[in-house]
Each structure stands twice: as structure tokens, then as C-alpha cells.
């Protein structure tokens, strides 16, 4: 009985091994790897974003890139390039000019997703843009962007400056003392404050009063969407001397951070961005 079992075992093992040996080599790929047809816009994006900076621009509809519970649509094709030209002018060019040719190449989100419509929240507010993990930025309302309106255009591109500040922070952390300037009024209910109320507490915007990282990003974004004169005017309008001092201290932290970590003078950057923005509006 034992022998029989052994014998059967050997035969079975052989069968298993032999059946595995097909002896054929791997053939060519079965998957279609042809380059899809590229439109003029696609080629422009390749030459201006993908090629030089390794940043992909998703303007065609892909439901997996957006929240399925929202009702959104892709942008009108004609609106994509004008928007991207502004992205170049107010973000890529100033940083490249001051930080060097490889600045944006080394530190940048890897993907921009463009959406044509409004992203309405449950509360009735509208989200203009979101950033995920420092690698993907989604911009909404592409079809509603009016490049002749300075306030709206600045508010729109504040999103990019804000998110990029986060990405910079993730690469080089800022001085942790920043969080000790005025931590007492940070709140998760920041949206119940107006910008003016937040400023009287020593935060540049309402969102800045949510927590220190957002505070830092909002400081950078506000500085990069105003001229130096306009920024000073905002601070001078604040009634509370303490609040003014808090914001000025934080401004110094931000300026120090840009000089120490990247060798960039933030005021030069501010002027460049401001000039480029004004050029677009006019």
C-alpha cells in the first residue's frame, strides 16, 4: 500500500511539472501602446508643462479625478490655454526667475486637473480649488474665470500660491517658532469669522486662523496676490496694535524662510507676481 502511494505520488508530481512546461517564449505586447492623437492644445501642454516641468494637465473629463457626489463638467477647450498661460505667468515664471531654472522642476505638484463648473458645498459655498498630498491641484470654475477682473483673478490664483506654499513646506519645514506667535485663537470653526475679524486677532485671513500650517500658507498666498503697498495697507487698516505686530512678526518669518531655504527675496517675488498679474488684466 505504502509503495503504491509513493509510486502514485511520483507520477502525480511529474505530471504536475510536465504540464507546467509549455516551452513557449513571451510574445509581443497584447496591449495597445500607440500614442493617442494629440490636438494642438495637447501639443502646447506637452511643450510647456509636461516636457519642461513634468506637470500633467488634465483638462479632459475623467470622472475618477473628481468627487462623484458633485455635479461637474469639463472646461471648454478654448478656455484651457489662456488659464494655463496665467499659471505660467503668476507662478512658474516668477519662481523660476528668482529660484533658478530647476526650481519648479524640482518642487511642484505633478498634476493639475481642470474642471469647468462650480463645485458647490453642502453649505452653499463654492470651492475654487483643492490640493491633494502636494501632488495634485484641482481648479474649478475654469469656464467662469474672467481674466479682466483683477480681484477675481487674484482670488482664483491665490489657490495655487496657497497650495504651492504647502508643497514648499513639505520639502523644507519652516521655523517651528512660527506657531508660537499667536496660537491662542486658532479654531476649527474659522469659517464663522470674517477676514476682518481674523485680522483683528492677528491672522491675515479667516482661513489663516484655522491652524499654523494654513496660517503660513495664507500669509504666503496673500503676499503673492497683493503688491507690497496693498499688503501694507491691509495690515495698517487693523485697529489692534497687537494684531498688527503678530502679522508683521509672521511676515518676517515668511521672508526669512524664503531667504534661508531657497535664497529667494519674497518681496522681489511679490513684485514680479503682481506685475505679471497686472499685465494679464490689462
Amino acid at each position, binding site marked *: *500500500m505504502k509503495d503504491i*502511494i509513493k509510486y*502514485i*505520488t511520483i507520477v*502525480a508530481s511529474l*505530471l*504536475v511539472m510536465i*504540464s507546467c512546461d509549455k516551452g513557449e517564449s513571451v510574445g509581443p505586447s*497584447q*496591449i*495597445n501602446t500607440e500614442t493617442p*492623437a494629440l*490636438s494642438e492644445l495637447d501639443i502646447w501642454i506637452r511643450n510647456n508643462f509636461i516636457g519642461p516641468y513634468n506637470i500633467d494637465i488634465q*483638462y*479632459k*473629463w*475623467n*470622472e475618477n479625478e473628481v468627487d*462623484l457626489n*458633485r*455635479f*461637474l*463638467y*469639463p*472646461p*471648454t*477647450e478654448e478656455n484651457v490655454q489662456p488659464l494655463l498661460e496665467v499659471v505660467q505667468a503668476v507662478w512658474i515664471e516668477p519662481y523660476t526667475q528668482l529660484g533658478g531654472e530647476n526650481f519648479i522642476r524640482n518642487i511642484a505638484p505633478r498634476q493639475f486637473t481642470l474642471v*469647468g*463648473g*462650480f*463645485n*458647490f458645498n453642502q453649505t*452653499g459655498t463654492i470651492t475654487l480649488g483643492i490640493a491633494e498630498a502636494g501632488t495634485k491641484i484641482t481648479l474649478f470654475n475654469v*469656464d467662469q474665470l474672467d481674466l479682466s477682473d483683477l480681484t477675481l483673478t487674484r482670488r482664483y490664483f491665490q489657490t495655487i500660491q496657497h497650495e504651492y506654499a504647502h508643497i514648499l513646506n513639505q520639502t523644507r519645514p519652516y521655523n517651528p517658532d512660527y506657531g508660537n506667535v499667536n496660537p491662542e485663537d486658532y479654531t476649527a470653526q474659522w469659517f464663522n469669522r470674517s477676514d476682518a475679524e481674523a485680522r483683528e486677532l492677528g491672522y491675515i485671513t479667516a482661513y489663516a486662523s484655522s491652524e499654523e500650517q494654513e496660517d503660513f500658507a495664507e500669509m504666503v498666498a496673500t503676499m503673492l496676490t497683493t503688491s507690497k503697498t496693498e499688503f501694507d495697507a491691509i495690515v495698517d487698516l487693523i485697529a489692534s496694535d497687537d494684531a498688527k505686530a503678530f502679522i508683521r512678526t509672521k511676515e518676517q518669518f515668511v521672508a526669512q524662510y524664503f531667504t534661508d531655504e531657497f535664497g529667494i527675496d519674497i518681496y522681489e517675488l511679490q513684485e514680479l507676481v503682481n506685475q505679471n498679474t497686472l499685465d494679464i488684466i490689462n
Partner: protein
Amino acid sequence: MIIKALKKIWFLSLLLVFFSCSNDDSEELFNETPSTRIDQRISELQNLLLASPDGYRAIYFTKDDEYGGFTFYMKFNSDGTVEMTSDVDSETAITSSRYDVKMGTTTELVFSTRNHIHKVSDSNIPGLIGSGYEGNSNFMYIKNEGGNITFIEPRNEAVIIFEPVNAGDWANVNTSLARRSSLLPSVTSSVFQGLTIEDASGNKKVYNIDYDSLRLFINATNQAEDGTVTEISYGIAYTTDGLVASPPIEIDGTSYETFIFNETSMSYISTVGGNTATIGFLDEPPFITNDVLDIGVDFSTFLYRPSLGANPLTSLGFDAIIDQINTGVAPFGLSMFEFRVIIDLEGADGDTFLQIRLVDNTGAGLNIFYDMRPSVMDKKLFFEYIAPVGGNSIFLESQMQPLIDFLINTQGLYYTTTGNFQTFINTAGTFVNADDTSQRVYGLWL
């Protein structure tokens, strides 16, 4: 004992190895590799889209338990562009955008840059903020039947069929768009709308319809003699010839889907096996409530004061009456501030009257009075005219005639209680002129 059992198991498992090896794995369910089959399916749909030289028409009901549908005309080109128009709004110019045919959940058609179809996924439509019509940009390819291509939209499982059209059909987009006004109230249209089902022997069943012209959605309710209420809801999409209902209207085993517009009766008619369904304006309400019996019992003074705010329940036909009165008294520097109808069914002459207050631009003014005699018959309220009371009332009688005619018409008035008046605790109600159902007034009881 255990070893014996183990041996048995060992032996049995070896047998299993043999049998499993003898499985017929040479049988091929598909001749091609998965990637080739995916590619084939993609080219199949791509070729189908290009097959109709003048494009396709599709009626897209985004979510037919909440909204109606819209018609789209689409012409697909081999360079990845699609030209499109639609009757979603008055901008019907043909625009071009991109489309993709790709493998998603299944083979999908994606409208990848903005065009007419995205108007139904725009969440910024006044009245529909945050949701829009809940449409989508992706459509799953299901089947092709003689050139008609069926898709399913994954979010709401809406079925959309692309039908080939001729170049001349594209202009019909303006016809279907223009139909949108056909069910909207006008100065002369009746305030009653209904869905009437009539069988071959002439038996009628009338549903009162509540038409939401923004959502293109209809709620139809029927109250039977025994009080049972049945309700049917459906979305509609206007077509070149009439309209289609989705889901189809199922009544007594008959399904009505396609309606043809009848110019004479200004209504939409669907005929199925000798039965007809008609959607349109009605000369009388499908059902008369007993609310009129509360007059003089629960309330007796009806007030209409335009400055309290407009309400869609006051019809354009009634607005025209007020306009007429205001034009009539304008030469005296006056306009109508309000009118009251004081009703006392048990009282003597002089207890029931119409009181109108006319004011000048400082707010100062005068009250004028017209005595009437009330009665209730066939669930309707009737007034018999007696006479004006006082000099001013006599002097202004001809100017007040449109309102007096509204009240004292020979067919009477339909009355319905409609809950509370705006944010007040007062009961609200409407009167409709049974002789001319385009006239309805909404007011409150004091």
C-alpha cells in the same frame, strides 16, 4: 486509526490532482486576448458613432424620478471632435468639443470637453443650485440595434438611445424648444391642467397635474368618488411632434409614452389601443373640494391686497382684471390698494358686499361698496349683484366692472382652501371664475 485516516485523505487528495489535471483546459471561450477584445469593442463603438453621416438624436432623461429630459443632436467626427446642439436652453447654436471612446467600467463614450450635453451637469442653475439636472459626461455602451445605439449613464442608470438623423432634422431643436411654453400659464389659459384618460366607450378619468416647468416634471393626482387618491409622477421631454413621458405613464394596464401635440385643443394626446391620454388645460377642475362649505362658518371676510406680495396662484388672467381697474381710476390719481369680500350666507341684503379701497400716491383714499347676495350651489359660490352703495361707488361702478363681473358670473366661483397665507397664521384660499377659468385670485381670510 488516525494514521489510517490520514492515508486515506492523502490518497484521495492525490486522486484530486489527477482529476484536476484532466480538466479540459484546451477549450477556448474567446479566440482573442482580452486586450484585443477590448480594442475590438472600442473600434466597434467608434465606427458606429461615425456610421451616421449627419449624426444622431438622443433624448436624455438624466433622472426621470425628478426631472424631465432634453433632446441633443450630435455629429461625431473621426478627428475626435463632436458637433452638438440641444434644446436645454435658448442657446441652440452648434458647438464643437472633444469626445473619447475608451474602456472604463465597460466600453464608454465620454464627452471630454464642454459642449451642450454638459448643461445638464451644470450645478449653477437658479432653482437647482448644487445639483442642476444631475446629468453626466460618461455613457456606457450597451448595444446596437439596426444603427440605434443604446447607452446607460452609470450614476442614475438612465438609458439613452442614439438614433440616426438627417441633416434637416437638426433644425427641429428649435421646434422642441418652442414647445416648452405650451404648458406654461398665459393670460388666457385655464388655471387647471390635467391628464385625462378616456377609454373606447368614453369613460373618463381625470388627473389634476402639477407641472414644474423648471424640472420638466409632472405630478398627477386623481381623487376617485370614494376618496382614494392615486398619484403618478413622470418627467417629460418635448419633441418635434409633441412630447415623451419617462417613465411611461401606466394607467389601468395601458402604457402611454409618446404624445402628439394637437393644435386645435392645444394639448398633447397619446392613443394606445383605443384609449387616449391627454395632457393639457382643463375647463373645470378634475375634482371639486367641499372647502366652499367652510365659508361663513370658519371665515367670512376675504382680502386681496397686492402689496402683501405676489403669488403664482393669482393667475395672469386675474392680474389683467386688476390692471384694467388701475387703468380706469388712473385719471383720478388713484390705484387699487385692496379689496374685501364680506360674505354672510344667512344674512339680509346689505350684509354681503364687495369693498374696494382706492388710494392716491400719499396713501390717502376712499372705500367704495357694492352689495351682493351670496348662495352656495353644486359646491360653487354664487353672487347676485344688487347695487352700489353711496355716491363714489355709483360714480366708479363702470371702472370696477371687471372685478364685479369676476364675482357675479353666472357659472359661479370654485373655492379652494390653500393652507396658511404666506408666513401669516391666516387661512389662505383661491377663487376661480367658473365661466372663465383663466381668472384665479389668491388671498387670505381675516
